């Protein structure tokens, strides 16, 4: 058996409102906000990147899990905005939490699901007794071209999960659904991603998320009503709500994990931050389904049951952390994103 031993989340404190971005491009903020169900998004500080966000999340996870970081045998950082093209983010994290040198580490890339791919690897390494603890991180300072539809959602943040044999939540099973679907990409050396507009919906997000969720429930013999919480990848606020409805989940099952409307799409951080927000409020015995989505395309689905250990676990309070925020205007947003450098 594998379990979540601890988790940590971090979202930078700066925010920009959808209406501020719409103002620059002469668009109607109200229709964009209601169309995407996103009202504001997080913005990294000028000295923040995927490495610093990953370190923040990782340090919180270690602190709350109360484990010796030297016992972490693997660190995987999933992101599509690693600060280096060649030179791992994972080694920076490993050093910053003092897990070095006896461990394996690597960076992953699979659009928005690289973090959950790391979780699956940690589960496998723990189950095969190759390591005691593994850490999987999903973090991004999401890129979007100025004026592109993605600009209203592309946000910054990340979450870290420590996987071990026993912990606050048992991972009952995980499966993946993967195909070659070019719905979103970023070419080597290009600063911004491109996407297939409407093509990112039905044949991409919905197909993969729904198939992964269905395959997992079929394998385990569960139905939507068996779950207390459901977390689906959140490229905007609308997609996870629509996919939940299509699969037969109710709104109350996804509400606690739905952060996109107030922080935007943190890409690799998205579904993992959603899971972290759910663990903040879950009780012993709560059952959770998590389905990530990464363009290109694939979904990882997890069936999780919260254990009694959650009661004595000091929870981070992600929604409280999100209340500490400072709004910036569009020009400051561009400066913070180092777009002028």
């Amino acid at each position, binding site marked *: 058996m594998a379990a979540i031993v601890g988790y940590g989340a971090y979202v930078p*404190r700066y925010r920009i409102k959808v209406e501020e971005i719409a103002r620059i491009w002469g668009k109607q903020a109200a229709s964009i906000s209601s169309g995407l169900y996103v009202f504001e998004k997080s913005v990294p*500080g*000028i*000295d*923040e*990147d995927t*490495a*610093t966000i990953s*370190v*923040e999340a990782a340090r919180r996870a270690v602190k709350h899990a109360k484990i010796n970081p030297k016992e972490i045998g693997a660190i995987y950082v999933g992101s599509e905005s690693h*600060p*280096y093209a060649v030179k791992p983010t994972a080694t*920076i994290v490993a*050093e*910053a939490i*003092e897990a070095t040198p006896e461990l394996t580490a690597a960076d992953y890339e699979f659009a928005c699901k690289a973090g959950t791919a790391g979780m699956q690897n940690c589960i496998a390494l723990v189950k095969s007794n190759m390591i005691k603890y593994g850490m999987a991180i999903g973090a991004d300072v999401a890129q979007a071209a100025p004026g592109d539809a993605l600009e209203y959602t592309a946000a910054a943040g990340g979450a870290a999960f420590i996987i071990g044999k026993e912990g606050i939540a048992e991972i009952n099973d995980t499966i993946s659904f993967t195909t070659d679907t070019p719905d979103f990409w970023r070419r080597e050396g290009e600063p911004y991603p491109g996407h297939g507009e409407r093509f990112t919906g039905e044949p991409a997000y919905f197909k993969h998320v729904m198939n992964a969720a269905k395959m997992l429930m079929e394998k385990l013999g569960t139905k939507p009503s068996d779950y207390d919480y459901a977390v689906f990848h959140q490229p905007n606020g609308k997609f996870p709500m629509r996919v939940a409805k299509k699969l037969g989940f109710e709104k109350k099952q996804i509400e606690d994990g739905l952060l996109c409307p107030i922080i935007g799409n943190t890409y690799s951080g998205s579904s993992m931050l959603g899971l972290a927000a759910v663990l903040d409020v879950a009780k012993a015995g709560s059952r959770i389904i998590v389905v990530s989505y990464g363009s290109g395309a694939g979904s990882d689905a997890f069936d999780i049951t919260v254990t009694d250990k959650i009661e004595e676990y000091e929870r981070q309070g992600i929604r409280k952390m999100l209340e500490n925020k*400072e709004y910036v205007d569009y020009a400051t947003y561009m*400066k913070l994103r180092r777009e*002028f*450098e």
Partner: protein
Amino acid sequence: MGVARYWREIPARYNLIGKKCGVCGKVYFPPRIVCPKCRRKSIGKMEDYKLSGKGTVESFTVIRVPPPEFEGKSPYVMALIKMDEGCYLTGQIVDCSIDEVHIGMRVEACLRRIQEDGKRGAIYYGYKFRKAKE
């Protein structure tokens, strides 16, 4: 800053690992090989010591005309911080407005980008400080 020097200082820059004199117990940051007070008595007795990261602003200044490598980042606050362990550090204060910074403000360390060797060079990370939650 060269990569070799940065790499040598990673434990201090990332995790505030200084030295504690095994004779008199004084904590030093950045790390020292010898305690200037105990001198030869401290040789071989200087132990690694990780600072808690918590401290208090003793004094600060606002940088409005920065060195070339920090161009575009100004204005920013550089502060002299008395760490809870008694040693002093100079560090940037982030995530709060300049007006909020005051002498006596409680701060905690965090890891941020410090500088980079241009577009093609290495990125250097290290400690900065933000308002403490307590």
